[in-house]
């Protein structure tokens, strides 16, 4: 076992047995990250800050104050604000921004003893599906450096796939955890909306934004989500599951224990006995590439072979999730990004005539093309005379989409299908036509609009490129989703494949 390929449990055992110290582990991954700098995954590394955290973790380990994650390295998507490291959101607007506080997710992982390796590249303000919208250059896919890693959490996915960090954080507004995980061959879970605090996550579309872990396996994701999730009064839409009708489900911080226990108790006559898997026909329609369809179908056949019941169903408004999303997300973005005025923080233009000119010039210079496009779209759909026809109508369609999922969950436990219609594409291939890229989000947007938990789990390779299986659960059903994904990973080894990276 190399540390780069180790699971979180293996790293825990290595730290606890003093085979390695937290400082040595941090240095190991920092060296790998620096050697693989051509992938452009990291935006900010600061050895001094990382090693100080590692020394503190070693002190905790020496004193016996040890949790599941103490001393294990992690790297954060540059959407989470961090004290010390710059927080840029992949934008020139925040190129030199250093946050006076840590995001809740960062703070929680730090107090669990995780050692931060730095900040990871992403599409500007998390707007994009290819990571080509980063102001600091695109991330390369470690499986093929001429291809995109997916987006917007492209740096987070590529860094885990290349073994530059054992785990990373990401965010998902319309598929930004699941799609890059699928394209880089790693595992990620977007939990139910309201599960992971948005406090300190630089806002894109607040009614959709949700943080989550990215790692090599469902088992690792369960351990990470246990530490990341939890009610936070500083996030006005944070949900305490015990106050909802879904109370009683296994949720954080008991996910990892449940996954382990579930694996022990698995029936020998087919590990998926009693599980009903819904297959929406809209996810397998024209538009899905044949090679992705083939591997997703093989994965579903594996579930069936191991006892799961396969139920064909319909999510009739799948196609409408694209227009609904591309009204709601830009509307909320235009509102959220109005805070960037060049007065209190962020980029300020050098020359201007007056206050209004200063604000407009600062925003025009600071934001990239896709961000500006979405702000303009958002300004239009929220403007007087158009609000009802666009924004309100989209929010009503959103409810219909969410109700379609609830209807589906009366017939099944999970919904499965592809994450994206294709594997990772060549850099530059779709960047000239923004709307063409929007269409690629077809299988992930509905889950985001409905606020449901969704995972990407590696399920095969089309040529040299990884394919992800999407597992969608009902609200707060992360425990069963992770346990099921872990069972799948106990009988397959797609998640153990790693790309050859130079160091």
């Amino acid at each position, binding site marked *: 076992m190399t540390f780069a390929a180790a699971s979180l449990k293996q790293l825990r055992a290595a730290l606890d047995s003093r085979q390695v110290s937290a400082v040595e582990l941090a240095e190991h991954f920092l060296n790998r990250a620096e050697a693989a700098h051509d992938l452009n995954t990291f935006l900010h590394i600061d050895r001094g800050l990382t090693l100080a955290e590692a020394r503190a973790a070693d002190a905790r380990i020496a004193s016996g104050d040890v949790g599941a994650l103490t001393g294990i390295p992690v790297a954060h998507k540059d959407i989470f604000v961090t004290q010390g490291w710059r927080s840029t959101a992949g934008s020139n607007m925040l190129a030199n*921004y*250093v946050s*006076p*506080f840590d995001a809740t997710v960062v703070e929680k992982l730090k107090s669990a003893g995780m050692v931060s390796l730095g900040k990871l590249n992403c599409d500007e303000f998390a707007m994009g599906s290819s990571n080509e919208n980063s102001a600091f250059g695109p991330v390369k896919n470690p499986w093929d450096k001429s291809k995109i890693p997916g987006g917007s959490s492209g740096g987070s996915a590529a860094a885990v796939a290349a073994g530059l960090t054992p785990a990373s954080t990401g965010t998902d507004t319309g598929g930004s955890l699941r799609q890059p995980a699928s394209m880089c061959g790693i595992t990620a879970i977007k939990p139910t909306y*309201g599960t992971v605090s948005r406090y300190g996550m630089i806002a894109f579309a607040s*009614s959709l934004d949700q943080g989550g872990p990215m790692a090599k396996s469902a088992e690792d994701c369960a351990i990470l989500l246990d530490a990341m999730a939890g009610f936070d*009064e500083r996030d*006005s*839409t944070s949900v305490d599951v015990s106050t*909802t*009708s*879904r109370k009683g489900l296994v949720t954080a911080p008991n996910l990892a224990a449940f996954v382990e226990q579930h694996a022990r108790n698995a029936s020998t006559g087919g590990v998926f006995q009693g599980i009903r898997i819904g297959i929406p026909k809209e996810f397998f*329609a*024209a*538009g899905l590439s044949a090679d992705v369809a083939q591997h997703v179908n093989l994965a579903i056949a594996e579930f069936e072979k191991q006892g799961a019941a396969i139920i064909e169903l319909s999510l009739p408004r799948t*196609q*409408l999730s694209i*227009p*609904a999303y591309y*009204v709601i997300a830009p509307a909320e973005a235009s509102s959220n990004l*109005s805070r960037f005025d060049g*007065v*209190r*923080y*962020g*980029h*300020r233009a050098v020359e201007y005539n*007056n*206050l*209004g000119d*200063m604000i*407009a010039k600062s*925003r*025009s210079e600071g*934001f990239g093309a896709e961000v500006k*496009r979405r*702000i*303009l*779209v*958002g*300004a*239009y759909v929220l403007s007087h005379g158009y609000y009802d*026809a*666009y924004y*309100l109508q989209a*929010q*009503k*369609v959103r*409810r*219909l989409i*969410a*109700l379609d999922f*609830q209807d589906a969950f009366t017939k099944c436990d999970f919904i499965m299908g592809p994450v994206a219609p294709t594997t990772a594409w060549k850099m530059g291939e779709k960047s000239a*036509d923004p*709307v063409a890229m*929007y*269409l690629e989000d077809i299988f992930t947007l509905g889950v985001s*609009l409905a*606020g449901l938990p969704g995972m990407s789990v590696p399920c095969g390779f089309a040529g040299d490129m990884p394919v992800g299986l999407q597992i969608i659960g009902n*609200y707060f059903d992360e425990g069963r989703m992770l346990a099921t994904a872990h069972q799948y990973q106990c009988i397959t080894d797609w998640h153990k494949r790693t790309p050859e990276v130079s160091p």
Partner: protein
Amino acid sequence: MLLACLFAVFNRFSREATFFTTIRKEFRFMHLSLDDIQRLSRLARINVAPAESPQIQNELNAVFNLVEQLKAVDTNGIEPLCHPIAAIEEMTLRLRLDVVTESDQREANMGNAPQQENGLFFVPKVLE
């Protein structure tokens, strides 16, 4: 009856065959004029130079052609969904108590100011 069945079959066929193409169908009309682009530019405080206006107009019109299909959806009697969990139960947004919870972070918060003077954000003259 037969006609209805045929219609259903046709509908299904056309829906699947045109999974992606319907949303890109060339029923393009000029949704936004160049004047609209200038108006949006002022509303959003994003400068759009006259030279780049036609390109921005094309790109935004492509987005609006995509979202146009929302208008055909019957949403009579459907409430908008703001917090996703409200799809399954009543959700009320929490309000915090109207009390001071933050300590004084003035210096830390001023640390990112592009320009400041005497501990205040510096901006060009607002009143002539």
